[in-house]
């Protein structure tokens, strides 16, 4: 089997007095979709910041095999003065892609996330769901090999959230990027991922790990199956133990 794309070995992180993460060990294999579930403030986002290099761990080792890392933030982080198209092109511009490639890829990605007819709109005119799609598209355009999601759908209403979960799952099936998805929704975590890691409250520690057996592509109806319900219950139990 190939080496894992990302490995955390005994990683700890402190901010001044506060211990955010303690002795975190896990790895993600090629093509795997890993969900990190935990209460808010448990250091889940810190895991992403360390993985992407935005922050440095206090102790421990982080091995990462790819340089093509996509990062989707909690808020869509669009530039309000750029149209949807220009926003989607932004990261490619920063990476100095040539104009023609940018244009072609943007066309493709816009249609993939269903924003083609909104390409000339400014973010001010978009709904929360559309903004998040644009944000996803922007990262997707660079064909990341490792995709980090920091609770990207947390601020959306349940209906939009469910729809975007489905769309993200379909994108994952199509593109097979390796993913690490931070969330505090158990349902979202199970529906999207092939494996769930449960974090405890501060300092963040891994409390449990669950394999998610459902085949991709998944149907939203599986959320109502008994297997899904049982998994939710187990994960919720671990989540609620002394947290």
């Amino acid at each position, binding site marked *: 089997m190939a080496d894992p794309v990302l490995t955390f070995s005994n990683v700890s992180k402190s901010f001044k007095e506060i211990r955010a993460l303690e002795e975190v060990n896990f790895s993600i294999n090629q093509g795997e979709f890993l969900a990190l579930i935990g209460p808010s403030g448990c250091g889940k986002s810190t895991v992403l910041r360390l993985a992407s290099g*935005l922050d440095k761990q206090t102790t421990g080792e982080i091995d990462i095999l790819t340089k093509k890392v996509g*990062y989707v933030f*909690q808020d869509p*982080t669009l530039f*309000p*003065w750029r149209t949807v198209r220009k926003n989607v092109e932004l990261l490619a511009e*920063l990476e100095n892609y040539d104009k023609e490639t940018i244009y072609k890829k943007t066309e493709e990605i816009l249609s993939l996330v269903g924003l083609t007819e909104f390409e000339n709109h400014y973010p*001010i005119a978009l709904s929360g769901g559309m903004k998040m799609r644009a944000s996803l598209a922007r990262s997707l355009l660079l064909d990341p090999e490792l995709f980090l999601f920091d609770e990207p759908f947390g601020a959306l209403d349940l209906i939009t959230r469910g729809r975007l979960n489905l769309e993200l799952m379909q994108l994952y099936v199509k593109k097979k990027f390796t993913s690490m998805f931070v969330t505090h929704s158990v349902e979202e975590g199970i529906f999207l991922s092939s494996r769930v890691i449960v974090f405890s409250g501060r300092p963040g520690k891994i409390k449990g790990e669950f394999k998610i057996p459902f085949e991709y592509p998944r149907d939203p109806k599986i959320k109502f199956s008994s297997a899904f319900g049982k998994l939710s219950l187990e994960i919720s139990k671990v989540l609620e133990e002394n947290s």
Partner: protein
Amino acid sequence: MEKMYITYLKNSIPPLLVLIFVVCIHYTITYVVLEPTRRFLLPPPHSIIYEGFFVPKHRDEIIRGLLITTKVSLIGLSIAYIIGFITALLMSQAKWIERSLYPWAVFTQTVPILALVPIIGFWFGFDILARIIVVVIISIFPIIINTLTGLRGASSNLHDLLTLHNATRWTRATKLMIPYSLPDMFTGLRTSAGLAIIGSIVGDFFFGRGSPGLGMLLKAYGQRLRTEELLSATLVSCLLGITVFWCFSYMGRKLVGHWSESWSS
């Protein structure tokens, strides 16, 4: 199209009502409160308008004054804008630069300009140049502070996004910070525009030499107890201020109104 006119009308009716109210009060004071012998203290609106705008001598004086004041204000404001923008940009680049410059920016705001005016006159003469310097001092603060607020306004996530893609300082400034600062910058410019006109009139008023702008006219009319002309020159000064304010509001709406929440109409 018709709808636009209706909104336009709707928007102009309330201030017009206020105007009518003020004019009524004005007439009441002139004709009811003041005795005929003291009526020169507040001449009625129509004679203010007549003396100021229909007597050719006064009219030409006031128009010439208006042009000079406008010129001085706009040159001063442009210089204040360039210096202010560069200062804010420098301050946004490093904490130590901000700490070094901030007190001096506040200084321009708090210095009693009346005390500085004679000194500026001694150093730079009493004509246009000195007046422009007064304008710059009086109008630079809102530009610096508002632009700086805008430059600093982008969220840490937006900055992280650029960090992840190894953006240089230059890229960060041009692609993120400067565009982000534009709405606040226009707010600053709009405030400064009004101040620039005040600065230009104040400078003029105290220097009292060289080509006469509105300030010098105000002073001369005041000394000669020409209340009608004094009030019509004051009125013109106010109208100039309002026009400039309105121009910058319009510019702001045109340039950033399509994406900025604070400027969209």
